[in-house]
């Protein structure tokens, strides 16, 4: 039987190794998934047509329109905005002012054709009446999907 200290040392070494492994795995996944560009970055770097990437931002007020099954809206980060078109069912949380992440490609006309649109929500939960009261009194913190 090994002494207590040695056993502890083995456990701690194992902990560090597994921690590093999980960390690296998550970091790699993160690179894959979560690097989404803002409309400003797209405007500046001018992404090539046909290359798949993610765009994230807030849905611009009054920009949502639909034509048949295709919904068109603009996503903004305050400085720039990008027009996105999507031909599938939007998540129920999708609305003006909401944070969204879209995966898709830029077409020749500069419109982002999304294959997937995901909606973000923040950590605040309250009944509708409370939200209305807060909005009236001006204490409402506008939700910034990905603030």
């Amino acid at each position, binding site marked *: 039987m090994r002494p*207590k200290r040695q*056993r*502890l040392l*083995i*456990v701690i070494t*194992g*902990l*560090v*190794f*597994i*921690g590093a492994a*999980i*960390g690296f*795995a*998550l970091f790699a*996944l*993160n690179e*894959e*998934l*979560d690097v*989404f560009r803002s409309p400003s970055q797209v405007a500046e770097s001018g992404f090539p047509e046909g290359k798949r990437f993610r765009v994230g931002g807030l849905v611009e007020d009054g920009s949502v329109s639909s034509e048949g099954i295709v919904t068109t809206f603009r996503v903004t980060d305050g400085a720039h905005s990008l027009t996105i078109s999507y031909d599938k069912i*939007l*998540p*129920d*949380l*999708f609305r003006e002012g909401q944070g969204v*992440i879209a995966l898709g490609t830029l077409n020749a006309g500069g419109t982002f054709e999304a294959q*997937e*649109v*995901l*909606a*973000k*929500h*923040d*950590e*605040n*939960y*309250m*009944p*509708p*009446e*409370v*939200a*209305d009261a807060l909005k009236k009194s001006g204490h409402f913190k506008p*939700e910034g999907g*990905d603030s």
Partner: protein
Amino acid sequence: MHRFANPTRFLRLAAAVLPFSAAVAALCLGAGLVWGLFFAPPDYQQGDTVRIMFIHVPAAMMSMGVYAGMAIASAIALIWRHAVADLIAKASAPIGATFCFICLLTGSLWGKPMWGTWWVWDARLTSMLIMLFIYLGYMALWQAFDDQTKAARAAAILALVGAINLPIIKFSVEWWNTLHQPASLITMSGPKIHASLLWPLLLMIVGFGAYYLTVLIYRVRAEIHMRRTRMLRLAQADRHAAMQAAE
């Protein structure tokens, strides 16, 4: 602590606790169910899907809490050779794994209507899935050894090593850019949930905790009896062999 290393004493204590934990679990889960489904208001953004929170959040918290308990019991068993701690850890695993599975499943059922997807490989969801696999690996490791002492040691080391995943789960929503929301309940500036939704949630969390304690007592009881049966069987076999050798 060493007082409870005696299985008989532990069983006596457990029998005294059981009626209370069972009563608290039944009351809180019952009240939480009625409050959460009938009386709690819908959320201003997420409507009635917020009722999934009353299962999802307690399951998530308890799956992490049970894991923490399992890791602590494993450390006690490993370092001090405590005779009941390894059984507590072993008995906790299926309960924690069930909570973890419920959390992932209800999260998926919540994500589909709100986010627009059943699953996404973001840091929170991925680290939670890793915890489910660690739970399953831990349970498999116990089964992999014939010698229960060796099994206990190997499983305890796995439980301790896997504990590193706990802070990763908790802080994943801050360290990485996740689709999953940041913490609503345990935050530096207090809960971000309105009282009308917070109270039923707290009831459910207490209910889940008491449920864990109740089921844990039954499972540890089973483990203690099974260990004693194994030892008596071995002794019987030895006696039998000795008798045959004498003939």
